[in-house]
Structures are given as structure tokens and as C-alpha cells.
């Protein structure tokens, strides 16, 4: 250190050495890049609000979401006492939307989380091992691809029986194959890269290569894809509810509300689309957040 300062005083052109960067791990760097990006931060904020509202629904909701009033059916937005109007049974829309977030977000997030954990581990292992193991796993996954996802969900839900837990399991099963496929193809590409060979040459074991080299490169792809499925899961769960295979009618759920209000679309169109708007906002926020996450996970500017 002392010699370098001596040199810099002697040298005609003084080289200003930047202070060494604060040591950041990969994920700290991802967090920092994410915080500097406004769009995902705004989307994240909206999602935090929606999730918080769902969690603290009993304290936030102005009215009982299940209290019907035949006199006050399909009140327009802004009517006294009902900020967002009422539904076809006179229940307060705002309260129902707040409560509905509980089930809908759960149905969107939990199956996708399970599917991501299962699908990416299966896919990464299949992709990393390659050869016959890969073939066997992926051909089994291909069986699920033979059915359209809605049909598969309906079939599975029918087989498992109605109910929120079965609906959750069935959604997780439906979304596992596509995530497995994405994880497998991403891993297969990484596996043949020289740096994986180099890691093997340094004596690293397969699990440590998967954690250190494969996961760092495929997780952004998988996360982006999985978060784009959250909105699909919310809509699909509402579809199952509509068919009587998911959530039972009195429960507030965005998808179910969308279905029951469908009959009133010509009388009170704004009320009818409100649950859809919530689904839209949530899914767009998840998509933009995942986009931002992918950008943040890429170390290249």
C-alpha cells in the first residue's frame, strides 16, 4: 500500500484507484440491482399491499363479505356505504375483493411454489444426469403434455374430488410438467458448457456443481417462467371453482366472483369486471416483478 501511494505521487499521471468494491454475494447483488429498478419495485409494492390486505382482511374490510341484502343488489360503484358497489346478492364488493384475495392468492402462489420446487428439482436432475435417466423422466412428463392443461386440471380435480385442498394438489400437478420441461432444457444447455467440465475437473462433486454452477444459471429462467404461471393458476382455480370442483360458492374468491357476476354483466358491467381487474393487476404485477427479477439476476448490465 505504501509503495503504491509513493508511486502515485511520483507518477505524472496519477492513477486514482477506485476503492475496492464492497464484497457482495451473488444474491446481495441481485437484491441491489432489483432495488434500483423502479418498475419491479412498484409492482412489488402493489403486490405487498394486495397480500397484506388479504392477510389482514378482517381488520381492513369495511363490511362482512357474506352479509347479503336483497334490497341493495348490484349497487353501482361509489354508492353510500359500498365504495365499490355490491354484487348480485347485495354483498359489499370491496370486502369480498379483499377477502377473495386470500383464497385466490393462495391458489395462485401455493401450487406454483410446490410445482416450482418439485419441477425444478426433477428437471435439473434429469437435465444434469442426461442419458437414459433424462429420457425416462422426460417421457413420463410428456404424458402430461398430451392433455391440455385445463382438461388435465378438470380430470385430476374430478378424480381427487372437490375441495380446496384437492384443488391445490391438482393445480400443483398441472403446473409441474411445464416447469420440469423448462428446468430440464435450461440445465441441458448449461451442462455441456466448459465451465461445468472445468468444475468437474477441479474435483467438485455433482451436487456441488448443481448448486454452484447449474442453479445460478437456470434459476432466473425457472423463476421467470414460474411467476408467469401464477396468474394462470389463479384463473384456472376459478375455472375449477366454477365447475364445482374447487372453492364452494359462498366463499369469496376472485375467480368464483367473476363467474357468479357473469350473469349480471349487462346490468352492472363495472361490478362484474372488478374481480377480473384484481386478477389482472395481480398477474401483471407478478409478471413485471419476475421480469425485473430476471434482469436483476443477469450480471451483465
Amino acid at each position, binding site marked *: 500500500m505504501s509503495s503504491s501511494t509513493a508511486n502515485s505521487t511520483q507518477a505524472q499521471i496519477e492513477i486514482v*484507484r477506485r476503492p*475496492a*468494491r464492497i*464484497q*457482495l454475494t*451473488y444474491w446481495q447483488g441481485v437484491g441491489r440491482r432489483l432495488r434500483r429498478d423502479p418498475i419491479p419495485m412498484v409492482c412489488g409494492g402493489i403486490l405487498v399491499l394486495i397480500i397484506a390486505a388479504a392477510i389482514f382482511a378482517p381488520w381492513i374490510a369495511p363490511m362482512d363479505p357474506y352479509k347479503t341484502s336483497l334490497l341493495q343488489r348490484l349497487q353501482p360503484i361509489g354508492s353510500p356505504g359500498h365504495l365499490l358497489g355490491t354484487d348480485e346478492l347485495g354483498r359489499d364488493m370491496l370486502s369480498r375483493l379483499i377477502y377473495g384475495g386470500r383464497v385466490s392468492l393462495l391458489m395462485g402462489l401455493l401450487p406454483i411454489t410446490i410445482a416450482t420446487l418439485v419441477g425444478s428439482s426433477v428437471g435439473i436432475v434429469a437435465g444434469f444426469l442426461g442419458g437414459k435417466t433424462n429420457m425416462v423422466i422426460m417421457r413420463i412428463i410428456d404424458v402430461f403434455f398430451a392433455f391440455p392443461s385445463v382438461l388435465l386440471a378438470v380430470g385430476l380435480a374430478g378424480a381427487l374430488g372437490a375441495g380446496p385442498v384437492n384443488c391445490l394438489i391438482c393445480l400443483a400437478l398441472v403446473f409441474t410438467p411445464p416447469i420440469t420441461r423448462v428446468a430440464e432444457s435450461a440445465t441441458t444447455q448449461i451442462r455441456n*458448457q*466448459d*465451465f461445468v*467440465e*472445468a*468444475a*468437474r*475437473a*477441479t*474435483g*467438485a*462433486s455433482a451436487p*456441488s*456443481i448443481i448448486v*454452484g*454452477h447449474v442453479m*445460478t*444459471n437456470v434459476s432466473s429462467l425457472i423463476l421467470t417462467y414460474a411467476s408467469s404461471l401464477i396468474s394462470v393458476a389463479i384463473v384456472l382455480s376459478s375455472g375449477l371453482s366454477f365447475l364445482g370442483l374447487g372453492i364452494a360458492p359462498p366463499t369469496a374468491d376472485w375467480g368464483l366472483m367473476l363467474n357468479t357476476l357473469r350473469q349480471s354483466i349487462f346490468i352492472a358491467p363495472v361490478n362484474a369486471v372488478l374481480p377480473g381487474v384484481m386478477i389482472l393487476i395481480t398477474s401483471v404485477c407478478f409478471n413485471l416483478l419476475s421480469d425485473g427479477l430476471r434482469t436483476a439476476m443477469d*450480471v*451483465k448490465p
Partner: protein
Amino acid sequence: MNSASATTERSARSRAGPWNAGEEDRPVLSVHELKKYFRLSGGLFGAARGYVQAVDGVSFSVSKGETLGVVGESGCGKSTTARLLIRLIKPDQGRILLDGQDVDGPNGISVRALRHQVQMVFQDSYASLNPRHTAAEEVSFGLSAQGVARAEARNRAKQVLDFVGLDPGVFADRYPHELSGGQRQRVNIARALAINPRVLILDEAVSSLDKSVEAQVLNLLIDIKNRLGLTYVFISHDLNVVQFVSDRVLVMYLGKVVEIGPVEKVYRSAGHPYTRALIASRLSMNPRRRIAAPPVMGDLPSPINPPSGCRFRTRCPIAEPVCAENEPLLAAVGDDSLHVAACHAMAPRSGHSLAPVPMSRTASASGA
């Protein structure tokens, strides 16, 4: 049977007459009859369509502190040999001995133990670094994967980065895309050195660098070798670079060794016509001695169906019928037993018209 006896003969020679010093005559790394055929699947139900004979019966040994240069055209099996040496791929046949101990054989050492002592630097400096790892993470990864504590591995990584000429304060936290080609290759070298190996396999380690950086990295490699007392297997298609760094040269053609010898002997008086052609193909610094015609005509024959007998005969200027019938064995070129070439024209009693006339004693032996 013939080839096996030739191998033992040759390895006995290289043991008896070391290139370096008297006591260190045992080879650090030696390879016997290494074979790797890649299966070409593509037939019905993945049936084999054929086999690429990438490495076919290669034997050589490297003494301690020596640099063995490996040269040959693209597709001759240089890189496959490198991968076999560090067991990234498993040989179909043959043995690899480290200090006389069989790698992955009975009573031998494990592949893990081999990788503690032998390391490799890859050609593509960019592809061989994880884009999501900083230089220090990349260098310390192998260590922490081997169970060294994280902080200790990181310290060691910084030391090694410093050793290869990268100031850890500046470069430790840089990602590959923030480094130049030469710096990336230094990180690659640092990663290999972090394991503290005795043998370094350099697979075209400087080939993808531009000329000025190539010279820097070459000098760095030579410097490292002298400071750490390493043994190098230096694979390159660049004959000038090989001449610059190597003590001995091994020339490969289509999965076979065609010539091995001390570098100046091979470059001055090559025994094999292929080596001669390679050396003639080097561009001269003198514009009056421009090379217009390619020294070897035609393309490399397919390694799926290599020519019978001598594999070079299809392009050889001195090929004779005997070359199609028998496979040539490594025979001494001139009177130096360390310099051998696999050419019928070099082997006494081979039946080739250019074969050296045997001495009277051997002549009578052949007559008997």
C-alpha cells in the same frame, strides 16, 4: 501383440533415458495404449452407426518438470487425450499412471485423487468461466467443493489471483464479462493452480488469445512452471508456440501418435512425413519464402473409417504398398532412442524402400 511390445519398449526407453535430470527418471504421468471410441448412435433405436476412433492406442509419458507439447491437426484427438488424462471422459481401454499408480484401477488411486494432482486449463476462456461467478468465486469453487472452509478458500483464491498477475483488490469481484480475454485466461489458470496440482494440462490454453496477450500468458505459464516446479502437457495446434514452451513434442495424427522426440530434434530432423509437412507449413518471416502450396494435400480422413495400415498413407508423399498392409510401429529416428516416429520409412526391415539398411547384426537376425 506387436504394438504392445513396442509400447513397453518405448516406455522403457523413456524411463531409461530421461529428458531432465538423473534421479527424476520416473515419469509423473504415463499413459499406456489409451483408447477412446465415441459411439455414433443414430441408427434405429439408437443402434450404433459406427465408432469415431478419437484416440486409438496412444502411449506416452511425461517426466517431472518437463513440458510435453502435443501437436496435430484439428480432430486428431488432442483434446480427447487431454480430457482422458483428467478423466473428464473414461477411456475404453488403456491405463493412466500417476507416479506409477493406476488411476481408477485396482490398487491404484481414485479419480478424485488424480484431480488433486492434475489440473487442466481449457481453450475457451469465456465459456470455461461461469458467467454468474466472480473471479474469486470461480477460483475458490473447486476448493470449497473439496471441503475447504469458505473464508479460507476465498483467501487462497485471492493469493492465487495475485500469483497469476491479477490484483485481487481490483479483479476478485469481477464477473467474466468484465474481464479481457487474457485476464479471463489468467482466472482459468488460477482456478487450476488453486488446487495446487503437480501436472497442468493446457488444452489450447493460449490459442484463442490475440498475439500480444498470448505472449504474456505464455510467459506467465513458463514463469509459473519454474516457480512451482510443475509439469506441463501443452496441447496446441500452433507449432511455434509448442516449439517455444516444450521440452519434448508429441505429434498426433487421426488418434495415433506418429512421432515423439525432443523438440529441437523433431523440428530439425522430423522422422515422420506428416511431421515434416506440419513443420513445412509454418509461415516464414521472410516474404521471399512464401508458401503457396499446402504441404499436405486433401482433408483428414474420417476417424470413423480410418485408412488401413498407416493412417497417414492416403496423404503421404512416400506411401508404398506396405503402408496399407501393416501399421507402422514407433521406431527410432537416427541414432537417438528418445526420438521415435511411426513410419515404415524409418523402421528397419519394414519392407519400405526408404527404410534404413539394418546393421549387419540385425540383418543376420532377420535372415535367420
